């Protein structure tokens, strides 16, 4: 018997935090413009000390103003998608659940696009305007997961295959809507269909939105974490969880809303990046076990690591051009999905 203790949890998280730090340093160094490790370290320390103005070199500018924000964005988006994936897997009791596979990301993208259109029509004061898109993305995510949940039921029970089919069909339908919207409506700051369909971290969202997704991630992830031990029991079934003392309706609504927020915010700034939410929780389960008190925080770190790596690959393999990060995650994630599906069927 080696039950979980706070010390053991922190040890695992700090291990991943160290790996994340190393990955970030490498990601800062790699790119179209070469930067020396020494220069990188010096500039980073200056940023941490709040002396950004002391950074004079052009290289420093590239690192601090271009690469660092993009990496921070990758960290938050990756962590959000992974925690959302782990939550959907527990909530729907389906190891193949993932915001992208279930069509939730596409739903969020449709919501975000509608939000952008609305934003252009309404001419709101600029301090409010930026929040319509993430709100639309959240609503799009929440509606889609609700629809998939209803469509995925058979005889009152969630049926694993029906759920996946419902998700895949929703994703395909919503992608068509995205393509339709993008080709019929062209407005001020509507980004292209490839951004929404595949996901990309190449354009930085405005600063207010960056703060919003950072704070939103912390709140939503904390809300899900309060249900971590309930989720462990929920995996065995709702009736069983109830008899072990889980307030099932409360847990369901908290996780459903928080996971929709995480997906919505991630999609609002980066489009529908797939498979991070599927792959990362499985790797973390393999490494650290399936206890959600460990799985949720390690998935957050793991998702951050995975997306920083994927995005570094996306912007370096065909440098000075780049591919969309969603293509990188799909190339790795789709075969992994097939592997999980085959293993479940056998």
């Amino acid at each position, binding site marked *: *018997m080696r039950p*979980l*203790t706070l010390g053991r*949890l922190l040890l695992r998280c700090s291990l991943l935090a160290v790996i994340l730090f190393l990955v970030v340093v490498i990601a800062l160094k790699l790119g179209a413009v070469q930067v020396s490790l020494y220069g990188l370290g010096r500039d980073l320390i200056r940023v941490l000390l709040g002396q950004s103005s002391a950074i004079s070199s052009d290289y420093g500018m590239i690192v601090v103003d271009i690469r660092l924000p993009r990496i921070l964005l990758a960290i938050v988006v990756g962590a959000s998608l992974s925690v959302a994936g782990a939550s959907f897997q527990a909530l729907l009791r*389906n190891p193949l659940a993932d915001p992208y596979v279930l069509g939730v990301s596409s739903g969020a993208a449709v919501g975000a696009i509608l939000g952008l259109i609305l934003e252009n029509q309404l001419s709101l004061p600029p301090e409010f305007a930026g929040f319509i898109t993430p709100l639309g993305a959240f609503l799009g995510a929440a509606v889609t997961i609700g629809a998939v949940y209803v469509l995925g039921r058979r005889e009152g029970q969630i049926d694993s295959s029906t759920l996946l089919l419902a998700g895949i069909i929703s994703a395909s339908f919503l992608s068509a809507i995205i393509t339709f919207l993008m080709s019929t409506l062209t407005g001020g700051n509507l980004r292209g269909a490839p951004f929404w369909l595949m996901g990309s971290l190449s354009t930085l969202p405005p600063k207010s939105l960056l703060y919003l997704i950072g704070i939103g991630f912390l709140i939503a992830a904390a809300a899900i974490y309060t249900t*971590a*031990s309930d989720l462990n*029991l929920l995996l*065995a079934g709702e009736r069983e969880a109830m008899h072990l003392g889980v307030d099932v309706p409360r847990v369901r609504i908290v996780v459903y809303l928080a996971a929709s927020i995480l997906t919505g915010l991630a999609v609002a700034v980066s489009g529908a990046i797939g498979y991070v939410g599927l792959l990362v929780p499985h790797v973390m389960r393999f490494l650290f076990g399936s206890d959600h008190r460990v799985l949720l925080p390690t998935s957050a770190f793991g998702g951050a690591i995975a997306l920083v790596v994927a995005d570094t690959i996306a912007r370096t393999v065909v440098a000075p051009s780049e591919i969309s990060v969603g293509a990188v995650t799909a190339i790795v994630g789709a075969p992994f999905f097939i592997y999980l599906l085959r293993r479940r069927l056998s």
Partner: protein
Amino acid sequence: MSTPLRTPSPPPDQPRSNPDVRLSVEQASYVYAPNPSQAPLFTLEALSFQAKPGEIVAILGPNASGKSTLLKLISGALEPLSGRVFLNGFATHSLPPKIRAQRIALVQQESRLLFPSRAWEFVLQGRHAYNRRLHFESEKDINIAKNALAQVGATHLVERWMDQISGGEKQRVILARALAQQPLLLLLDEPTLHLDIGAQVDLLDSLRHLVAVNRYTVIVVTHELNLVGEYADQVVLLQKGKCLRVGSPASVYQRELLEQVFQAPLTVEMTVAGRPRVTLLGKS
């Protein structure tokens, strides 16, 4: 076997009329209907019985007789359409989830596992109802879990994976998790369904011993006539949603009654211990 698992001291505010009665089912009924305007799919007619601490009550009947519905009413998963189910004077349906889990434990037919876990992790789940939201298991929880595994004779399984042990071993670990809840009322839903005869007797023998030591009230749903005859103190006989008899196995096990309920020719004899034994006869 060390100290008894639970200290059954009830909270002081407990409105108990009769301290001898722990579970009281009073004219409880239930109706399944797809919607109120349509004819009901299934009706469990009002029925009553009572159970004391240390008693094993069997809910007996063929398939579709309402056994599972009655169990759900007792467990508080369903609210009775009419009547009430009281545990120590509290309606089981309206207990908050955590309090309910501290008083009522359910052992289900099978626990499906999405991701593998070890036996000790599984048993520790029984402590969930005693802990605050963000918690790590205490020394006390761990001792209770170890004790529960010892009480069902499964200490050797503690490090095993739940998906790699036999049906009988798994059933014991599931029972240990229920014991870790330190319940007053232990509900078993077809606990012997996938077990061979030896494992069935093993499980029920340890159950009888546990009941004697810890004074649980046990409700077991089954259609195993002979196991009920051997182990139950009280039988609730159901057929098509009607309660036909409540009483000791010796009084309920009448040949004509059982033949009619189970639709099979059979004989009933009494053992020297005063327990009925049923033998099935061919229909030809």
